[in-house]
């Protein structure tokens, strides 16, 4: 089935579940990546993926085709991630997921990909610092940064996802970069030859 996203969304809105299936299968990978970078752990990302598609299905009647379907889905995913992060904070699970466990996880993944010892030590430094630093960004800053840096969204798309103006979106990206820069500073001092 070579449906465009717009066609599939239109059919799905009329109640065709198979059309929705096309959309789910097509976008699952990218939604997972976004959810993982937003939440910082695999299980939360999986839950977010499920919730994103469930919400999308329930809200299909609100999709007017003005933005691309993928942008619309990103917005839902970003919001689901934010809901989950807030719930996690309120459950005080924050400590578990930002503490040793998450960093160790992260280090394992970095180590598996970069065997060179010199780069590894700096990668380790950055790895140590990055996820906790991302966790300390405000929700809007983290969303803006993840969309800009990892997903390659432009400012208008980010503004659309966040439901804010272009200037506010631009400024959120900037604040996020500033904070990350400060947080990662020690890695550069150690890593500098």
């Amino acid at each position, binding site marked *: 089935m070579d449906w465009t996203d717009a066609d599939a969304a239109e059919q799905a809105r009329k109640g065709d579940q198979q059309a929705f299936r096309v959309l789910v*299968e097509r976008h699952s990978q990218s939604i997972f990546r976004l959810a993982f970078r937003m939440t910082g752990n695999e299980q939360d990302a999986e839950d977010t993926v499920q919730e994103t598609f469930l919400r999308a299905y329930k809200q299909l009647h609100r999709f007017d085709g003005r933005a691309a379907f993928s942008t619309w889905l990103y917005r839902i995913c970003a919001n689901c991630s934010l809901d989950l992060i807030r719930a996690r904070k309120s459950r005080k699970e924050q400590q578990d997921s930002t503490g040793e466990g998450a960093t160790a996880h992260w280090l394992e993944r970095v180590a598996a990909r970069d065997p060179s010892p010199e780069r590894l030590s700096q990668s380790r430094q950055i790895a140590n610092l990055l996820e906790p630093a991302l966790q300390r960004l405000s929700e809007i800053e983290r969303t803006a940064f993840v969309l800009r840096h990892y997903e390659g969204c432009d400012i208008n798309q980010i503004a659309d996802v966040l439901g804010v103006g272009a200037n506010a979106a631009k400024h959120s*990206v900037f604040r996020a970069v500033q904070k990350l820069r400060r947080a990662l500073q020690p890695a550069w001092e150690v890593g500098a030859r």
Partner: protein
Amino acid sequence: MTHPDEEQLVQAYYGEIDDAFHHHLEECPECAATFDRLKEMLDSVSDYPVPERNSAYGAEVWARLVPHLPLAQPRPGWLRWWVLGPVLATLLTVAFLAGRFTEQRQTGISTTARERVLLMAISDHLERSQIVLTELVHADPQAADLASERDRARDLVSENRLLRETAVHMDDPSVVALLDQLERVLVDVANSPSALPPDDLAALQQRIESEGLLFKVRVTGANTREKGQKL
């Protein structure tokens, strides 16, 4: 052009700035150095490893999602769910066993996530079985047309076998035992004529009740779901 501020440098990194800026960098070593440091920092965080998902991931997400989708038109949607059930179970079982035996942790869905999918599939299966059993238990022996229950029981039998196989690999003896017990009843229903003689139906009903099967299916279904959600 005056020296660009920090925010403009960030914009420049993301390719949102004009030629005048690049011109300035060529002529101003101070800004060029600042920009290089920024670039190095931002490049370094690009390598944010995300666990990989294999090409079957979309289908797995759909399989987990479909039992939770609200149904637009109750009956056709519901029928589709029935038809889809065994297919999904097959897909999930194959994915589970493949991942389990090749230990493809890097390329596949993680073991935990996979177990979760399976627990959800078992729970959905038990839910569907529960509906059939409930209908059977409440059928009037004097005037029962069991064609629909029989057809669904046939689908459930094959799904049941696949999931039993999986439960064996997951080392979950209580679920295996329940699926064994369930299979015997489902097979009998699947092989019965649609117009079951009143005595036979009454006997079947009594069997379901005396074995406490409906209750076990309900409790195990709920426990399995809860276990899956906690993983």
